[in-house]
């Protein structure tokens, strides 16, 4: 059975390395902006890349539990909060690229857009639902909310489904990429159902 690395290694090596690794996609994008390497439509490219990274971090976060069971490495749970916060981090940048380079901070137009365009409505809802999760991510809140914390954080499944729907409503004709993300999410959701079955919840 694999052993857990010492706490010190987790705190002072693994977490900082992961922290920097998660910043890498943003770093690459910023670098590309300053080197004029985002092609003919950089604004679209920025929104798409950050949107996709938001979704990827969401799926990675959901994968922590199955992976730690599979690898029998319970300590991996200690990395989950950071990954979850990165979902919010990339979602914020994603939304910022839209507010800035699509709408140029025109609040009226943004509100109209959120109401009118279904894919924006759903993306916005997903973003709003992330906020309570971020606010309750501290140790103190985990302790204070106890069982309710677990319940509250089930919201992440709703957010994930909304994210896929957001993507679905955006695609014009080619669903290939979306299907890959969708299947990964389904797999992760089925894993949970299966676990619950085993525990006899059903």
């Amino acid at each position, binding site marked *: 059975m694999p052993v857990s690395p010492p706490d010190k290694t987790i705190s002072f090596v693994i977490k900082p390395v992961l922290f920097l690794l998660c910043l890498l996609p943003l770093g690459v994008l910023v670098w590309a902006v300053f080197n004029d390497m985002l092609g003919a*439509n950089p604004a679209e490219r920025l929104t798409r890349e950050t949107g*996709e990274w938001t979704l990827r971090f969401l799926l990675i976060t959901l994968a922590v539990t199955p992976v730690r069971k599979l690898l029998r490495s319970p300590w991996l749970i200690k990395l989950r909060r950071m990954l979850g916060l990165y979902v919010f981090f990339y979602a914020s940048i994603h939304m910022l690229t839209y507010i800035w380079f699509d709408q140029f901070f025109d609040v009226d137009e943004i509100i109209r857009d959120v109401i009118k*365009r279904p894919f924006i409505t759903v993306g916005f809802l997903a973003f709003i639902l992330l906020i309570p999760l971020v606010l309750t991510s501290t140790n103190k809140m985990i302790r204070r909310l106890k069982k309710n914390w677990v319940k509250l954080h089930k919201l992440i499944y709703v957010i994930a489904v909304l994210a896929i729907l957001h993507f679905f409503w955006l695609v014009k*004709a080619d669903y290939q990429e979306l299907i890959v993300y969708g299947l990964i999410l389904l797999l992760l959701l089925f894993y949970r159902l299966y676990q619950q079955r085993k525990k006899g919840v059903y």
Partner: protein
Amino acid sequence: MSIIIKTSSDIKASEITPKSVYMDRRRFMKQAFASSLLLATDAMLPAWAKRWPDLEASQFNASDKLTPFENVTSYNNFYELGTGKKDPASNASMFNPEPWSIAVEGECNKPGVFNLEDFIKPYALQEYIYRLRCVEGWSMVIPWVGFSLADMLKQFEPNSNAKYVEFTTLLDKSRLPGQARRVLNWPYVEGLRIDEAMNPLPIMAVGLYGDILPSQNGAPIRLVVPWKYGFKSIKSIVKIRFTETQPKATWNERAPEEYGFYSNVNPEVDHPRWSQKTERRIGEPFWKPKHKTQMFNGYGEQVAHLYAGMDLVKYF
């Protein structure tokens, strides 16, 4: 999907391509074209692929700043060569537009099948600088090389049953590999009402920036209808048919509530995914404000009368 794939052709977005630069590129393209045909010299290029350095300007030329050649040829919607914006340019070498012939059919007195050279020979080519507005909310300004669609259609003497003109793209997945996946109902079909087609604005384009059409832009011959969303301007045309009934246009058939048959550029009628009020002019710095979209893409003077009395919200 990759994070960022860069090629040396990505350029400073803010400049107009100076003539000297595209002359150079022209030389390069000539070579690329020749080698793609396994030909060695210019002299062996097909006659229609002559370069057109100094064409007469059309009377409708836009005065907007041109979109750089690099952007015009690297950011394309041409699903026959892939669904990503850069796919058509990446896959361009797979598509060899030689040989090419065009069939003219339907309600006309002089139908026939023509090789491309004969097809375009009767017309004096001109340069047409037109705005192109994509339904996705971006736009370009492109110097096309082409000739009037109306002049061309008249050659075939459409009869009184010809109410519409239908255009069809090549169907051949060995040359257009994107057709191997059924993302759309191939072949791509588009159409115009006959009076729209007979308007002096639409052209058949055989080139851009004074050179032959690159594959990704719809080589060797395509339609350009500047007051309609870009998807109406069908690429790589092999068939033109005069019909009595409205043609089954591909996107319109696929999602009629999103893509109308008319698809005139109209800032008042939003697409469910994209607001149509503004547009991003490709080639301009992305942190600069977008442009306001104009009714009929700014060509109202030439075309508004075609729709007199029509409810353009209903017939979007």
